[in-house]
């Protein structure tokens, strides 16, 4: 009898401590994350202009209806989706390939990891400034591509042509983050115990079979982690597109949702509509994440 009571009170005590440890973080999120998003949700129901001193008009879901009918907003969705898929798929595939290649080398592993990761260390503003010069018609971009394709003097219009400018933003993002995800995959690969491979060898498996039937499935949690993080990052991209448009690139092809939100609020002063866009982006992000989780239920992996 007394034993049960004492273990119960230990549980209670531990539970309380759990709350104490979590509390500061929860309070912070309430003030700086939950309150603002609810505020944004509230604002999105009004017609509010940033400079106006008059109280805003309540218009319910009109902002949302306008956005869903607006070709400009659908262009932003298109730009964001194209950018996300065009970036995160190559990121996923190549970082896995790089990780495998690096791990197969006996030397220079650290060198490659550091080298591949180094662009992620630079700030996005620095990256944008460097690539703006590379993509200048007279810059390295044209020089190298012309060298490889043997087409001297051709301007590939990295920042001018609508298709090229989208690819340029994807290239910059890929360059910046492929090393980061390579390292994550390397950690994932390293956590697969050698014993499994040894057992498979005894059973007569070769490298290709190893990869397909052992490595890939065991990498699933890492792959999901990489997908979700890289995708969320892509959906939130801002600096590269912002700085490219400031540097002269056309807005329409790369007017991703975040950039549209920024301009709608800051240039057009329409804070109600910008808030509605933010809520829609939030919903899109939650949707993508949920889909990813659903399509692959593995969370813990046991060997």
């Amino acid at each position, binding site marked *: 009898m007394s034993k049960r009571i004492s273990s119960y009170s230990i549980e209670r005590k531990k539970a309380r401590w759990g709350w104490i440890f979590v509390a500061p973080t929860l309070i912070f999120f309430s003030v700086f994350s939950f309150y603002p998003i609810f505020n944004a949700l509230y604002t999105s129901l009004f017609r509010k202009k940033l400079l106006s001193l008059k109280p805003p008009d309540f218009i319910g879901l009109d902002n949302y209806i306008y956005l869903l009918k607006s070709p400009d907003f659908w262009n932003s969705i298109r730009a964001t989706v194209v950018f996300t898929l065009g970036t995160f798929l190559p990121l996923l595939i190549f970082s896995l390939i790089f990780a495998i290649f690096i791990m197969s080398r006996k030397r220079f592993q650290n060198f490659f990891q550091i080298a591949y990761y180094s662009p992620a260390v630079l700030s996005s503003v620095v990256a944008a400034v460097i690539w703006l010069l590379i993509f200048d*018609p007279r810059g390295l971009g044209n020089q190298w591509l012309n060298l490889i394709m043997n087409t001297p003097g051709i*301007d590939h219009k990295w920042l001018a042509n609508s298709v090229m400018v989208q690819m340029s933003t994807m290239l910059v993002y890929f360059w910046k983050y492929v090393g980061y995800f390579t390292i994550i995959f390397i950690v994932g690969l390293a956590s697969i115990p050698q014993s499994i491979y040894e057992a498979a060898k005894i059973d007569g498996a070769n490298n290709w079979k190893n990869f397909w039937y052992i490595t890939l499935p065991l990498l699933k949690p890492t792959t999901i982690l990489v997908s979700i993080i890289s995708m969320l990052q892509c959906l939130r991209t801002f600096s590269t597109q912002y700085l490219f448009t400031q540097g002269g*690139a056309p807005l329409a092809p790369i007017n991703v949702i975040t950039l549209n939100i920024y301009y709608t609020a800051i240039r057009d002063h329409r804070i109600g509509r910008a808030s509605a866009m933010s809520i829609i982006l939030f919903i899109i992000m939650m949707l993508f994440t949920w889909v990813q989780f659903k399509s692959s239920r593995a969370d813990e992996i046991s060997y």
Partner: protein
Amino acid sequence: MKKLFTIFIFVLLLSMTVNSVTAMEITFWTHEDPNRTEIEDRYIAEFEQANPGVTIKRVTNASGKIIELILTAFAANQGPDIFNMSIEDEYAYIVNERLAPVDFEAAGYPSLQAVYDAYIPGVLDPVTYKGQLYGLPLELTNWCIFINKKVFKDAGLDPEKDYPKTWEEMVEVSDKLCIREGEILNRRGFDFRYPYYLVAMVPMVEQLGGQLISDDGKTAIVNDEAWLKFLKFMQEWGPSGRNLGSPTYTNARKLFNMDNNDIGMCHTGLYQIGRINADNPAFYDSKEWMIVPFPVFEDAVKDVPAAYYGHYYMVNGQKPKENQQMAWKFIAYMLSHSEEYLTKVNIVQPTVELMSSETYKSMPYSDVFTNDMAKGHIVYYGENSAKIQSHIREAVESVMLAGVSPEDALKTLRRKVQEVLDEG
């Protein structure tokens, strides 16, 4: 010990209250311009000496950034005391009643009418709203064409005779001045002042008989033919046409001063002269540059030069009355130095006194600017001018860079600008 402590606290509190009574801080946000910063810092020092207890904090930002900064500050009701932007960006603040009207007494005028009389007729109209005056001009600027004579001579042309007078000539002359490596331009002739479509490009449409907005302010895009001709012209100019320039190259006016044989002409204002002198005195002294008027289309129906725009000093209406008064007093003090603004910064304050002065008349090429300004009109300003400008930008970019047909681009432009007008 305790007594000492309480006395100390008392003195501290007293000193704090005394300070807050006599100390007034006026925050002054403006855009960067090293020549103007120099003289205005001096005016600040002189004013602070003549008005003890007042400190003026001057902050500069790049002209693009300052629009956002002032907006976010005002949105939080924390705007600066004094600020200036181009009128098409400032107008929204007037309409939303964020500003303090000009305190003519503090500014040293006997009456409001005296203020109007001191300035050229019409220049204070953009800042007059519901019978009140809300700003005093820091500058009224228009842009003309600057020419690098060396580049002309290098291409075998005579700048005095062969400079372009029509847009068609501009195309041919630029083409002769271009040095290309394949498709890549190493030297351009002329290139447009790209982000500023309302100032630099709408007048081109007006030359052909078109209008951005109908006279009654209700309809967007008047005279399709004029607009189509303009859009076709820009398409021809860009990479898919004659390949004479594009928004993705470095801005022409940034390159002009350096005299690096990479640009022949640029489109900018009187203030550029002072900047050439500051950035590259050798180039300035060599006099290998000249200024010519804004070109006109061959079959133009109207002779319209580039629009002029103005920066007006304005005062935050949410600050206490004393701050507003002091702010207007300081603004008037600065603006009383019109001649120095002209000679040191090369910006023109459109006072009757200055425009008729010898100093102004004897500035090199001032006649080119004056003649063009007399023919021109002020840039379109309205509560939503920024958005309209971005739509024009999109239209031009889509025909130049994205291969959209001028007809489609015009349709989109009309729809979007009309929407802005209808929404209000």
